[in-house]
């Protein structure tokens, strides 16, 4: 089909500099439906910065980011509607319960599927923790609240910044199976992590070397 020809997301010659010192330049790759792209690189190589460029909250100093062939500033509404970003800071309010947090996240998000909040929380392993305030959760449970958004979202593009941080081994496996399902449904995942994924269809992009590696 010709639809699958236009990449979901394509990044060309992207460069970013802060106060006149370059962080990276000439970053180019594209992501089609079904892709999982892992951004690699040492601490401070700019993975988080790259993901925030993709979400549009930072502006690149050169290069373009295109969604379905259009520059993301030209199709801002559609792009943002189709995107889900979970960063280092999981946007979980400590004084609210897990369910309240998730309800708010869904309410502000543009697209969501029919899964009930409660089911999503149960699936991420928070059964029994849905109605206590999030400050009484452990570090991993806290991040799981944010990750429950993955189950509810209908966005095709997932940007995840170190999604495995503080998550236990079973949780890491569960997340990977989520990624797998998502790409099978026609989505795509761009993630940064220092851990190796157990999935077969992962492409890696090393930011320190600014080059894509085929595994």
């Amino acid at each position, binding site marked *: 089909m010709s639809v699958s020809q236009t990449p979901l997301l394509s990044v060309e010659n992207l460069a970013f500099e802060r106060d006149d010192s370059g962080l990276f330049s000439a970053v180019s790759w594209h992501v089609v439906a079904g892709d999982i792209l892992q951004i690699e690189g040492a601490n401070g190589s700019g993975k988080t910065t790259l993901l925030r460029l993709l979400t549009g909250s930072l502006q690149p100093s050169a290069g373009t980011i295109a969604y379905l062939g259009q520059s993301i500033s030209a199709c801002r509404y559609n792009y943002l509607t189709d995107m889900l970003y979970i960063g280092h800071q999981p946007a979980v309010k400590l004084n609210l319960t897990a369910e309240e947090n998730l309800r708010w996240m869904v309410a502000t998000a543009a697209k969501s599927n029919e899964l009930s909040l409660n089911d999503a929380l149960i699936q991420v392993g928070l059964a029994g923790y849905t109605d*206590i*305030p999030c*400050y*009484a959760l452990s570090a991993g449970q806290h991040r799981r609240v944010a990750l429950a958004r993955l189950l509810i979202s209908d966005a095709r593009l997932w940007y995840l910044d170190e999604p495995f941080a503080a998550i236990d081994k079973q949780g890491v496996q569960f997340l990977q199976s989520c990624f797998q399902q998502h790409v099978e449904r026609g989505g795509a995942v761009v993630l940064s992590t220092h851990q190796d994924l157990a999935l077969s269809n992962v492409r890696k992009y090393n930011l320190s070397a600014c080059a894509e590696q085929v595994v």
Partner: protein
Amino acid sequence: MTWLSNGSPSWQWFHRLGSPRWFYHRSGRWLPWLSLAALLVLLNGLVWGLAFAPEDAKQGNSFRIIYIHVPAAFLAQSGYFIMAIAGAIGLIWKMKISYMVMKSAAPIGAVLTFIALFTGAVWGKPTWGAYWVWDARITSMLILLFLYAGVIALQYAYHSVDAASKASAILALVGTVNIPIINKSVDWWYTLHQPATIKLTSAPSMHMDMFMPLLVMIVGFYLFYAVALILHTRNEILRRERKTSWVRELANAKAGR
């Protein structure tokens, strides 16, 4: 903080004394008698005060508010100390029951303070021509209401029962240290600004026939306070110990009947 550390084993008997279950059962036995006594004394005082005590020469019948106003003001002040002492016992000997007493004492004290303020305000309109005047005692009373409010707010602010108890016990203690300072300073502020133009009805010269019912009412209020405190505490015990076997048995027994 040594006073937050474990008590020595010789205090073990004291702990048993303060066990919620023991308190619940004992107080259950006393409560009817205490309530009866409170009711009788209060009724006696009210009837005496409202119906039989002589009318005040200057204020007419409006002075009868005194039979509510003064006992409430009295209890409001001692209530704070009772609360703080309960908190201190909790901190020092880690007695759960005293934290519960402290928690229960706060709203009771606050309500009494409010009653004193409210009756005072109602009384103030005919006497001073204004609902509110910045008199020294009135101001101290208002500050006392704020102190109570602080303890109550802190109790509700914490999710964890343990933290709530200890934090409000510390606040209550800090407040107790401050109450005399506050009262003295407010007195001083008032006399600084106006040499007592407004005087409360002359208490010492109060007629004996007016004074006796007042005394009865004060005793009645103390008894009533004790009843209210015990009731509140029993409630609190059930709430906090709802997972223990003895409360479950109690609930089952109630449901069975």
